């Protein structure tokens, strides 16, 4: 009985051992990575939520269903959502507010190139300051500020440097005759045109059409008001995206007309709705690729009727059918065409009452 027992044991060991080895190897190679990744993802998501809590910052989720940021409840559920696909992981990182400026640069998000023409006047520093305070919340934002001046002013240079934003500082002076008067011989160049065109040229010189850096181009005037949600809406632009703008055209807002299929078929404006693109400069964004593939497309300088400036560029880039409506199919207002009053400096008098060396 002794011998068979040992042989039996040997037999059992011989049977079980390879299977154990096989199962261990299998487990390590195939299943474990997936599980480990999920676990790591959940863990990291929790950490990223916990850190802002320590900084006493509210988590703000930019979702259309109006859900507010919640820390305590549903953290587990949130991380499951976020860990199920790559897109959602990115979502986690970019909607956190941290007291550092600007948000860290992400390798995943397309860069938003914001083109702002500006010119010297008393409210310039104030306008640029509050614009910068908005931009400091937007990840992967590249500010292209183009001054209407002979050379770059120290006021703007210093301001840009102090904000900490990623920027490019350009300048081109609009010729004097075109700036002020408008008569038949010297038709007026709409303000900001040469500056925007310079920015387009700079983009074409800096980025190659074959490059892999995704980007969106947006024209933002320095006196408008922009919500943070707007920048996230435009980030997914494939060709040209559009949305409503408040306080333009003498209306509460102007908006593209969107049909049930989600396509733009017209323009809800009173002022000349039959323009090819009856939209304000702040109402659209263009994918950088489109700008680079059509290097001849610029804003028309002369002979442009009032309100046709935007069309002069867009008609060379895209047709009505290609437009992508954003802002919940163009039903939400995310940008306002505010205008700042010109300050009345009556008390300065002829010689100036205040010290001109103090910068305002």
């Amino acid at each position, binding site marked *: 009985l002794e011998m068979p027992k040992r042989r039996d044991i040997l*037999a059992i060991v011989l*049977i079980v051992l390879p299977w154990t080895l*096989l199962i261990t190897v299998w487990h390590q190679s*195939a299943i474990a990575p997936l599980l480990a*990744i999920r676990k790591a*993802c959940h863990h*990291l998501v929790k*950490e*990223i939520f916990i*850190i802002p809590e*320590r900084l006493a910052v*509210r988590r*703000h989720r930019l979702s259309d269903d*109006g859900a*507010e940021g919640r820390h305590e409840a549903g953290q587990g559920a949130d991380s499951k959502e976020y860990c199920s696909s790559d897109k959602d*992981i990115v979502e986690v*990182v970019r909607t*956190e*507010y*941290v*007291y*550092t400026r600007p948000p*860290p640069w992400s390798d*995943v998000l397309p860069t938003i190139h914001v083109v702002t023409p500006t010119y010297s006047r*008393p*409210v310039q*520093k*104030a*306008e640029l*300051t*509050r614009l910068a*305070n908005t931009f*400091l*919340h937007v990840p992967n934002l590249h500010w292209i500020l183009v001054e209407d001046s002979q050379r770059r002013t120290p006021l703007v240079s210093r301001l840009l440097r102090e904000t900490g934003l990623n920027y490019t500082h350009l300048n081109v002076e609009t010729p004097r005759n075109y700036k002020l008067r408008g008569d038949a011989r010297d038709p007026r160049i709409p303000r900001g045109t040469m500056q925007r065109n310079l920015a387009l040229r700079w983009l074409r010189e800096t980025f190659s059409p074959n490059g892999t850096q995704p980007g969106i181009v947006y024209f933002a005037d320095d006196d408008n*008001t922009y*919500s*943070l949600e707007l920048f996230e809406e435009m980030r997914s632009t494939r060709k040209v995206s559009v949305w409503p703008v*408040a*306080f333009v055209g*003498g209306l*509460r*807002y102007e908006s593209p007309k969107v049909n049930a299929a989600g396509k733009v078929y017209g323009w*809800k404006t*009173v*002022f000349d709705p039959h323009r090819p693109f009856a939209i304000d400069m702040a109402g659209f964004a263009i994918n950088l690729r489109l700008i680079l593939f059509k290097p001849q497309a610029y804003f028309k300088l002369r002979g442009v009727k009032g309100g046709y400036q935007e069309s002069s560029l867009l008609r060379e880039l895209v047709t009505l059918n290609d437009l992508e409506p954003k802002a919940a199919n163009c039903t939400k*207002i995310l940008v*306002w*065409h*505010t*205008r*700042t*009053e010109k*300050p*009345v400096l009556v*008390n*300065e008098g002829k010689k100036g009452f*205040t010290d001109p060396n*103090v*910068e*305002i």
Partner: protein
Amino acid sequence: MRLRFKLKTVFILYFTVSLFGLIYALMQLGQRCDCAERDFAKDHAISRLRGKRHSLLEQTKKLEPTKNPKPPLPTIYVITPTYTRLVQKAELTRLSHTFLLVPQLHWIVVEDSPHKTSLVSDFLSHSGLAFTHLHVATPRERKLQEGDPNWLKPRGVEQRNEGLRWLRETNRNRAEDAVVYFADDDNTYSLQLFEEMRWTQRVSVWPVGLVGGMRYERPVVEQGRVVRFHTGWRPSRPFPLDMAGFAVSLRLVLVNPEARFDGDAPMGFLESSFLQSLVTMEELEPKADMCTKVLVWHTRTEKPKMKREEAMLKQGLGSDPAIEV
């Protein structure tokens, strides 16, 4: 004999099955590359997240000393009166973007309204800021009528006083180190301004741009003290300052429970009516590099032209009022 035979067959069967199993498993391992691609994407995401986490942790370490020094960072209570008009949401939006960048800021929004409006309530709850939402309606006789010039009646008086009342009520039993600042919703504020005012002991002052018909108004400082005010309009006022040009320590507000803005004061004396009972000119603390830098601007926003909207309304074709502007 039978047993051995069975065992042999069993062994042979076993080895054959194992062999096929091993071959199958090896083939499976070979095919793993497909899943690995997805795994690499996940790995990239994980490593990115790790990078972000690392940078966030570093930021936490950097900020913790400034956020909780000995003593902790004083809170800045910003009182903003607001009223319903077309540009209200836009003004509050861009104001909130500035405030979000200021640590330890508590926004007290006081609506000129008999009840809280949903526009402001929704806006504040989504803003990400620490806030208090109050409301008090200006009595009819003190309200500006359509067509009245801006300077005819003082604005925001009841609302600012309501903000002060709330502060006094919530701080009855505490002596918090904090500062109170009156910020109108159409001005422009730089981030540096808030750091200048944070350590106010009594009342601190600084220049304000684009006000009083001048490029800027400012207190004049000699040897670290305010000696007079540089302003183009009625410089003989006790405190010829703009509302945006001073901040008061919460302690001073609590110690003087009767100090408030007087709506009946003559034009331009609103700020003086409040500050007179709190401080003298000699006690003022000059900020912004001895009052030589402009860190706040008294900007005003144009009223948007609604001619076409009004025409459309007459035809019954006005824009959708359900869409909030």
